[in-house]
């Protein structure tokens, strides 16, 4: 497993993916902030900003770091190298969890940073909702490992566009709805983590047994 993680780390380094993904992240942030400032219609932002940003932040990382043209390394290159399918699946999952945690931290800090201007600093229930929602999104995105490289890239692009569009239009109602249903936010986060982990276990089972 450690050898696989080293390989994944080196692959990210060779691709120069971190710098690229941070630039794309700034681009997404700029569009979102531009929308909020231009329309100035959804204030206060404290219920929406962090959950949207933490989910939106995942996309540039996942798209850039794991963009593989049409080579589908999880189905072709990696299983032909001396790694078990468990190593590959768990290793890739761990990297994605690390990226998710990083995007949570970045989004939280950014929400605090612009808080004085658009009232975006999240309260604890909103932090829980953001954690739960972005984790669910991550595990759904993780299902794309079964698809071909270019299809995966297209789906990630579609998810990013859809999410951005939703956050600019009805996102506020979605997150407010979640907050009304789960006032403490904790129950939503806990349920999301359980569902996400179950989904990942099913995903792993499929990956270990399927024809690649």
């Amino acid at each position: 497993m450690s050898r696989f993680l080293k390989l994944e780390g080196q692959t990210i380094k060779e691709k120069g993916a971190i710098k690229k993904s941070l630039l794309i992240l700034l681009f997404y942030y700029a569009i979102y902030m531009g929308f909020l400032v231009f329309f100035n219609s959804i204030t206060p932002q404290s219920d929406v900003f962090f959950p949207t940003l933490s989910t939106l932040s995942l996309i540039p990382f996942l798209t850039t770091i794991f963009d593989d043209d049409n080579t589908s390394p999880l189905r072709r290159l990696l299983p032909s190298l001396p790694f078990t399918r468990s190593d590959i699946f768990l290793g890739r999952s761990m990297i994605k969890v690390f990226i998710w945690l990083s995007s949570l931290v970045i989004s939280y800090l950014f929400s605090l940073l612009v808080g004085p201007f658009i009232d975006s600093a999240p309260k604890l229930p909103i932090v829980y909702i953001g954690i739960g929602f972005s984790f669910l999104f991550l595990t759904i995105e993780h299902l794309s490992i079964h698809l071909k490289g270019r299809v995966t890239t297209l789906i990630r692009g579609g998810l990013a566009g859809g999410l951005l569009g939703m956050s600019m239009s009805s996102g506020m109602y979605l997150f407010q709805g979640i907050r009304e249903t789960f006032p403490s936010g904790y129950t939503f986060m806990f349920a999301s983590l359980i569902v996400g982990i179950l989904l990942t276990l099913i995903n792993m089972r499929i990956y270990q047994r399927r024809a690649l």
Partner: protein
Amino acid sequence: MLEINQIEKSYPKFHLGPVDLTLPEGYIMGLVGENGAGKSTLIYTIMNLLPPKSGEVSIFGMNYKENEVLIKEHIGFIYEQSSFYENLTPSSMARLLRLSYKNWDDATYRRLMEQFSIAEKPLKKLSKGQRATYHFIAALSHNARLLILDEPTSGLDPIVRRELLDELRRYVEPGNRSVLFSTHITSDLEQVADLITFIHKGQVLFSKDVEELRESYHVVKGAKEAIDTLPLLGKQSKRTHVQGLYEGERGDLADAQVELEPASLEDIMFFMKRGDEHEQIS
């Protein structure tokens, strides 16, 4: 080295096997068959990329269930199409492969890179031939004991192809390494293969020594009346004569009013595939 016992794999419209196959140490085995015959399915099953419906694959006396990492450590595998990260340069890709294989051999890698003059630019900008050659170099650079190659020479020019085939010959010379490779280019196999396995519609029709093949298959040509009396594996009608594939000793046909020619691998594949189909070619 490699033993396949009763491997079967089913798809809605295709069934492979049961396949039994043995590749001993020090041999190069060519896997031939028409498109869709099951060559890649068999190779992917050997590589544990496709789980078989039944049967067992044993490599170096081990199975995947218990020793997947150890087995793959000693296999050099090439897909029919590039499987490497296309945006990376050869040296970047080599750094990743070095991390993957414990036995990565930098000296061999550098020697082959120089020999084949692979340019240092993103793999997707290399010519198809250079990319295929690079995969070849990578497979030969980690002291693998078994090379499994799925159509490795397609798209290569004849000179590079011959150089790579020479490398394969050199690779098996120590006697403890083997190669299994599928190809459509039967002339490649005639140059380097020791054993030929022919797959047709998911079934292994034969797996034989090349010399044995040369001695046991002959193309016979003659008048239709003379040809029709012979037990042939396949026939083809030409404007002036009929020809077919005969399996047996040359001497068996001493009294027949027919001409005999050595059968090439392509002849054998053609007649076996077409069976008793009579095709008129003008």
